[in-house]
């Protein structure tokens, strides 16, 4: 396998990893599978489109503002919609996220039309192709996504392990009833999980937008990244990372050696294989299966 292929795998894995972290956060804390995640990522990208046209001379402000909006978006979605499903059957909550995704797709086109946007261009950034090592060319945005993904994972790890709110989130995920009995406000924890999830999704969306533009079909990447989360185990952060690597490697290998058309289906083939052999994923906790 050439070095270029390896680089491609790493970049694709970073994309999948950054997107699937959002699935894991919400699932781990509240057992809800957020199938609107792809659409939320897309809206995050559109946020950048909006802020970049407002602050075209100041890319840092544009990006920071868009990321902040991404964070707020998750909290709003929880506060307005998802919190009514807390305590209800998980399947109903998942169905609502599907409906939310559809609503968001429609709204996105209504607000921004089907036109393709290039916020990178608006901000004056041309996304050069960089030669890291002889024989390996990747875009600057690809480098950015690898760095951002690493930073996000590190940040989340520190947050969950060492901060009070992070430990609360882990506790609520393990035993929401006991968490309530110990004074933890579940609504607050869930809202935070949603906020962090959409924040990371928006980051992913923005970088992808800077790399190749935004268009309403971007949301499908969200669904393709989902198998990565499942393969690793829906409630494991490290699992999402490993899962992303596996799915990305399988996909690139399939495109390269078998048939380029397979690109969209390979993640789901991996998903089906994992479901057949080890449904709770590589690092997931087994009880999840029976609890559903």
């Amino acid at each position, binding site marked *: 396998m050439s070095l270029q292929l390896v680089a491609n795998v790493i970049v694709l894995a970073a994309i999948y990893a950054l997107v699937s972290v959002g699935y894991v956060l919400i699932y781990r804390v509240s057992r809800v599978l957020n199938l609107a995640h792809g659409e939320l990522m897309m809206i995050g990208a559109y946020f950048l489109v909006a802020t970049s046209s407002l602050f075209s001379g100041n890319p840092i402000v544009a990006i920071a503002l868009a990321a902040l909006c991404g964070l707020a978006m998750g909290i709003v979605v929880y506060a307005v919609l998802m919190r009514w499903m807390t305590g209800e059957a998980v399947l109903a909550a998942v169905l609502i996220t599907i409906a939310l995704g559809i609503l968001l797709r429609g709204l996105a086109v209504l607000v921004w039309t089907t036109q393709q946007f290039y916020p990178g261009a608006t901000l004056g950034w041309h996304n050069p192709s960089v030669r890291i090592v002889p024989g390996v060319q990747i875009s600057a945005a690809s480098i950015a996504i690898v760095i951002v993904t690493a930073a996000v994972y590190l940040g989340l790890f520190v947050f969950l392990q060492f901060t*009070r709110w992070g*430990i*609360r989130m*882990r*506790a609520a995920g*393990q*035993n929401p*009833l*006991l*968490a*309530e*009995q*110990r*004074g*933890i*406000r579940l609504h607050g924890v869930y809202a935070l999980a949603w906020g962090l999830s959409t924040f990371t999704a928006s980051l992913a969306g923005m970088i992808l937008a800077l790399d190749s533009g935004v268009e309403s079909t971007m949301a499908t990447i969200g669904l393709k990244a989902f198998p990565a989360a499942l393969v690793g185990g829906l409630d494991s952060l490290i699992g999402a990372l490993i899962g992303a690597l596996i799915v990305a490697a399988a996909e690139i290998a399939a495109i390269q050696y078998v048939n380029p058309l397979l690109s969209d289906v390979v993640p789901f083939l991996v998903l089906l294989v994992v479901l057949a052999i080890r449904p709770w994923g590589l690092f997931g906790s087994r009880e999840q299966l029976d609890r559903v």
Partner: protein
Amino acid sequence: MTAASANTPLLAIEALEVAYHRTAVALHGISLKVMPQTIVAVLGNNGAGKTTTLRAISGFIGIDDARVTGGRIAFAGERIENQSPHANTARGIVLVPERDKVFPNLTVAENLIVATSHRANAAERRQLEALVFAFFPALTALRQRLAGLLSGGERQMLALGSAIICKPELLLVDELSLGLAPVAVEDLTRRLAGIRKELGIGILLVEQNAAVALAIADYGYVLENGRVVLEGAAADLRGRREIQQSYLGQASGEERRSYRALRRQETERPNG
């Protein structure tokens, strides 16, 4: 420490009825009181309604579709039946459940960090934390141990400790002794009595093991099939023959009988 004066009960339950799924009646009208700064024991076998009572008080009654269908529960004078568990925890009613009493994948230290009381400021919280380690010095060495790997006794200590950090006014303990060696149980009950004294709180202790509970309680109630069949000062209860036979396992060779059967037998025999 509490809003109630020395003569108002901390917790007053009157004629409480609880039903599961709107059909299966679990509590047929029980009445009990917890006076401030006392320990009250609620005894009885499995299915007597003890856990249901605790659930009704703590507000975690929605599990298994149960509801308070009659009577009232008053905490420091306020009615609290069918309110959200969150409201009750905010009032200072803290429950140590029978199972799943700690977070197994969190360390001891994390279990304690996670406990929150919205009524305690930072200084009070630090005090409470210090108190926990004073009551349960064994926990100090176990700080970094995963709670799931603790022994039964250690886990119970952690559970009580994290409950204390929630700054309880009324502590509800479900089956303190279950699965523990007698030595550990004795140790725990002594510490529990110490906690009551130090914090000046009320404690409602639900127990199958009457000896354990009556050793530290001030007052006791015996539940059977969702009804209170006996109550009295702990000292009196300890002496009652029925208790000895039914719940302290001191009946000689006879089959264990329900309290009711024994009472009937007693009243039919004039000279006891």
